[in-house]
C-alpha cells in the first residue's frame, strides 16, 4: 500500500473574489501546485505539493493567494510533535535518509539574542558616523610578529593579505548547489562592495574567472574542479575540512543537478552524483594538513593566503590551534546553524555547536598560545543581521561569512527544499527554466544594498560604542554583556553579565 500519510505542511488559500484566473501561479510553480481546470475555468491548488516558498504569492497580481501553515493538527504533544511523526512516516515509506536544505531550524539557544552591546555616554563620547571617518576596512591573513621600520620604510616582509572594505564575506556556496546566475550575482556584488565570495566545492565556472581577485577558491575533499589555473585564478585558497550544516560527512550533489556545464566546471561526467568524501583521503593527521597547505602555497608561489574551513565541533579550540600551527593564514569556522544545499536532516539538526561559543573559545585559546596574530578567524553559521556581525567580531572574529542572509536578499524564503533542485526563485536549481528567474543584475543590486545597509548599521553601532575602527572592536569582549545566560555560558563566551560594570 502506497498511501501517503504524511500531513502536508502548508495549505494554499485562494480568495475566489480576487482570483482573476490569470494563471501566473500555474505557470510559475515548479512543484505543480496550481492547475487550471479548463472546463470550470478555475484554478485548483494541490496543497500537498506546496513547499512554502511563496513565489506564487509574491507574483499574484491581485494578492489572491495566502500560504499558511496547515492548521490540520494532531493532539498536542510536546514530545511527539507533528514534525517528528511526519519524519517517521516518510522514513517508513521510503526507507531512506531524510534530506533537507538550509540551516538548523531547531530551537537551540541563539546566544546572539542573549548578548547586548554597549553605548557610550558621558564618560566616553560616542562618535557620529555621518561626520567622522569610520574604518570598516579589514585585512585577513597572517600578521607579522612585530613591525620594524627603518628610514620610514618597512623592514620586514608581510605575508599576502586579503583586503575587505567591510568585514563581511559571502560564504562558500558551490556552483551546482546554486545556479550560475546566483554565482554571478555574488561575484559581481563582491567586486562592487570590495569583499570576496567563495566558490565552494563546485569549481570555478569559466565565466567567473574575470572576478578572480574577489574570489576565494575552495579545495574540498572531492577536489572538484581543482587544477592549476583554478588555484591561480583566486585571491586566496580555502581548504574545506568540514561545514557547519553537516560536520563529519562530505558533500552531495544529486546526479539530476549535474548538467553539461556543471560537468565541465567540476570535471566529472554528466549525470553522475558528485560525492565529496568525508575526510580528504590525503589528510589523516595534522601533519598531512600542513603538507597540503604548503603544497598549495608552493603551487601559488606564496602569493596567496591559504586557509582552512572547519565546522564548529566540541574540540574546536585545539583543532583551530593545530590548524594555525600547521601554517594556515585564516581559519574559517562554520557553526551549527550554517546552511547547506543538501544534508541529512538528522545531522544538520544535531551535529555541531553554535558559532558564538566557537568564536569565543577559539579566540581565547589562540590568544593564550600567543598565536592569535598568525591567522584570521572568519566566523559563519547563522549571521542574520548587522548586530550579529558586531557581536561576532567583538567575541573575537576578524570577519564573518554570510550565506543564508545573502540568499534571502536574492529572494529565498528558506523553504528548505534546495535539495530537490526545484527552487522557484532560480537560486538553488540548475533547471534552465527556473534559473532565468534570477536576474543577476537585480540580485547583485540587492546584495550590494544589503551589505551597504549592514555597513551603515555597523558604523552606527561602532559610533555608539565610541569606536571608530573595526580593528578596535576585535575581541573587545568588554563591549558585550550577557542577558539571561548561565554562568558557564558567560565564562565560555568570556563576557560579563548585563548589569556588571568594567
Amino acid at each position, binding site marked *: 500500500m502506497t498511501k501517503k500519510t504524511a500531513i502536508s505542511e502548508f495549505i494554499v488559500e485562494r480568495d475566489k473574489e480576487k482570483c482573476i484566473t*490569470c494563471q501566473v501561479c500555474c*505557470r510559475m510553480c515548479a512543484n505543480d501546485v496550481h492547475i487550471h481546470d479548463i472546463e470550470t475555468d478555475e484554478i485548483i491548488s494541490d496543497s500537498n505539493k506546496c513547499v512554502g516558498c511563496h513565489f506564487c504569492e509574491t507574483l499574484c*497580481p*491581485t494578492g489572491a493567494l495566502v500560504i499558511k501553515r496547515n492548521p490540520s493538527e494532531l493532539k498536542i504533544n510536546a514530545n511527539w510533535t507533528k514534525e517528528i511523526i511526519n519524519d517517521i512516516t516518510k522514513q517508513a515509506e521510503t526507507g531512506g535518509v531524510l534530506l533537507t536544505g538550509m540551516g538548523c531550524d531547531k530551537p537551540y539557544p541563539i546566544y546572539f539574542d542573549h548578548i547586548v552591546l554597549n553605548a557610550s555616554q558621558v564618560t566616553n563620547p560616542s562618535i557620529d558616523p555621518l561626520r567622522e571617518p569610520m574604518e570598516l576596512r579589514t585585512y585577513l591573513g597572517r600578521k607579522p610578529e612585530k613591525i620594524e621600520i627603518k628610514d620610514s620604510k618597512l623592514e620586514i616582509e608581510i605575508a599576502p593579505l586579503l583586503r575587505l572594505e567591510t568585514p563581511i564575506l559571502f560564504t562558500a556556496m558551490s556552483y551546482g548547489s546554486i545556479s550560475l546566475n546566483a554565482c554571478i550575482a555574488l561575484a559581481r556584488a563582491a567586486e562592487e562592495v570590495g569583499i570576496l565570495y567563495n566558490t565552494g566545492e563546485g569549481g570555478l565556472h569559466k565565466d567567473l574567472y574575470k572576478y578572480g581577485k574577489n574570489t576565494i577558491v575552495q579545495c574540498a575533499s572531492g577536489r572538484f574542479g581543482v587544477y592549476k589555473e583554478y588555484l591561480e585564478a583566486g585571491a586566496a585558497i580555502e581548504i574545506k575540512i568540514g561545514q557547519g550544516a553537516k560536520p563529519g560527512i562530505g558533500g552531495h550533489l544529486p546526479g539530476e543537478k549535474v548538467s553539461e556545464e556543471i560537468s565541465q566546471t567540476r570535471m566529472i561526467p554528466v549525470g553522475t552524483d558528485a560525492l565529496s568524501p568525508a575526510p580528504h583521503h590525503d589528510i589523516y593527521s595534522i601533519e598531512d594538513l600542513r603538507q597540503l597547505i604548503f603544497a598549495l602555497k608552493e603551487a601559488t608561489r606564496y602569493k596567496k593566503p591559504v586557509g582552512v574551513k572547519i565546522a564548529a565541533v566540541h574540540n574546536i579550540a585545539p583543532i583551530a590551534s593545530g590548524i594555525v600551527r600547521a601554517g594556515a593564514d585564516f581559519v574559517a569556522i562554520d557553526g551549527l546553524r550554517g546552511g547547506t544545499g543538501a544534508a541529512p536532516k538528522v545531522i544538520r539538526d544535531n551535529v555541531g555547536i553554535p558559532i558564538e561559543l566557537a568564536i569565543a573559545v577559539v579566540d581565547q585559546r589562540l590568544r593564550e598560545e600567543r598565536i592569535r596574530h598568525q591567522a584570521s578567524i572568519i566566523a559563519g553559521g547563522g549571521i542574520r543581521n548587522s548586530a550579529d556581525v558586531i557581536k561576532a567580531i567583538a567575541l573575537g572574529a576578524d570577519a564573518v561569512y554570510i550565506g543564508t542572509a545573502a540568499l534571502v536578499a536574492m529572494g529565498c524564503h528558506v523553504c528548505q527544499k534546495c535539495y530537490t533542485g526545484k527552487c522557484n526563485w532560480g537560486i538553488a536549481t540548475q533547471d534552465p*527554466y527556473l534559473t*532565468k*528567474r534570477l*536576474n543577476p*543584475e537585480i540580485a547583485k543590486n540587492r546584495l550590494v544594498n544589503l551589505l551597504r545597509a549592514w555597513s551603515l548599521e555597523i558604523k552606527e553601532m561602532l559610533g555608539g560604542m565610541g569606536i571608530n575602527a573595526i580593528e578596535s572592536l576585535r575581541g573587545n569582549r568588554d563591549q558585550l554583556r550577557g542577558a539571561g545566560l548561565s554562568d558557564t555560558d558567560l565564562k565560555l563566551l568570556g563576557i560579563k553579565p548585563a548589569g556588571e560594570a568594567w
Partner: protein
Amino acid sequence: MVDKNQKRIIIREEYCMGCRLCEVYCLVQHSKTKNIIKAYKGEYPKPQPRIIIEEKGYLSFALQCRHCEDASCLEACITGAMYRDKKTGAVLCNEDKCVGCWMCIMVCPFGVIQRNRTTKKVASKCDLCLGEEIPVCIKNCPNEAIIFKEME
C-alpha cells in the same frame, strides 16, 4: 526622424520567466475600467492585450510593436490611420480611421499587429501606453526582462 531622447522597449529573452504578468497588465491597461478585477471578471468581451508572448521550451519573451524608425506599417496604411506620435515617437493606430484592411499585418516583419477581436474591425497593437510615464508591461515585469531605454 526619431529623437535620441525617446525611449523604446528592449527585450532581454535571457531573463523572461514566462509568467505573462506583462500580458495581464497590458490587458488591464487597454480595458474600459482599467481595474484588474473588473477587467477580467466584469468586462465583456474580454479586453485584448496588445503584447504577444512567444514561448518554446524554456525560452520565452514578450514581443510588442517596435515603433520602428522605418516603419513598414506606416507605409502600407491606406487610410492614414497609422501615424507617428511626435512626442514619444510611437507609431499609433487611429481606430476611428482604420477600416481593417490588414495591410499592416501583411508587412509587419515582427507580426505584432493583430486584428481587434473585441470592439470593432480595426488593427490593434502596442501604443507604448500613451499617457503613462512608463509602459505597464515594463513596470510590472518581475525580472526586468523588458526595459525602457533611450535609443543610442
